[in-house]
């Protein structure tokens, strides 16, 4: 009897799991916020994060920030961007997270 109950419970559990799975399959991803309704196929770092890197490099290297320009950027993972900067031919690489924290600044 207890074995039968165990089997019933297992079947019920699997059934509920499948039902929940089916329900979750019906839910669609919410649309992006109005300000995020455009994008490019190649994702660059947001402009503010690129400039936070420029500020950090200026501070770390003593280079005049008016001569420092972000020239390239890419997404490393879901929370991190890499930004390449140029200061009169001198290249620097910067890692910044989506919260605006500069993780590292290194000459390249």
């Amino acid at each position, binding site marked *: 009897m207890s074995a039968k109950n165990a089997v019933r419970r297992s079947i019920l559990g699997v059934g509920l799991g499948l039902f929940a799975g089916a329900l979750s399959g019906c839910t669609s991803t919410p649309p992006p916020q*109005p300000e995020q309704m455009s994008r490019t196929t*190649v994702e660059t770092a947001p402009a503010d994060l690129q400039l936070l890197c420029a500020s950090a490099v200026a501070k770390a290297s003593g280079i005049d920030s008016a001569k420092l*320009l972000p020239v390239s950027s890419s997404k490393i993972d879901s929370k991190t961007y890499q930004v390449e900067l140029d200061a009169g031919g001198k290249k620097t690489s910067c890692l910044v997270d989506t919260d605006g924290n500069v993780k590292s600044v290194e000459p390249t």
Partner: protein
Amino acid sequence: MTYSLANRSAAPKSNDRRAAGLVVGTVLVMTAIGATLAYAQTQVFDPQTHKWVDYDKKKARKYYAAHKEVPEAFRPQMVKFRTAEVPGTIIIDGNKHFLYLVQPGQQAMRYGIGVGREGFGWAGIVRVGRMAEWPTWTPPAEMVARDPNAAKYAAGMPGGPDNPLGARALYLYEGDQDTIYRIHGTPEPWTIGLDVSSGCFRMRNDDVTDLASRVSVGAKVIVLMQGAALYKGV
């Protein structure tokens, strides 16, 4: 017909000639290396199909005809913007087709823009040298030579709703030198969000009027453009 770069307005004649020379030089340099630029496709979110769709000239024109408006992302809006730049600074993200005007409190007013087509993008740090309302547009000599429509305005097209510079022009300077690039309005608002110009930044007339009312001559302008081959002011 595409305008810009050369979409210069009532600059003094000597400036016009110097600018025309710069246009030729700049175009040659950029054309030579234009092929190496990596331009990414713009996409907009379609709220009806819940899908991201490529946004090109044809779709942009169709969207504008149907809605009498640009997609929501390219309309003015206040956004979070973490920066050490002072309020009043203009930051242009050419890749994403946005112009930010830094506001107090880590915020910025964001506008949609049209930017330089492939081979005509540039990056740098410049400033607003002067501004004009309903500026005159004077086509450069090479445009006059190849385009009969432009030839009609060789002596200058008066400001007005059909003028390619639109309602306002903010002339971008590198030091005291006119870069020949401008932030300006447009009679073709559907081109916002696209790579269409010869290096100028175009905005809807209402937006450029609003921007000009908030900006002072001398304001710093940072132009970010990944893949650009030409740098100004750095």
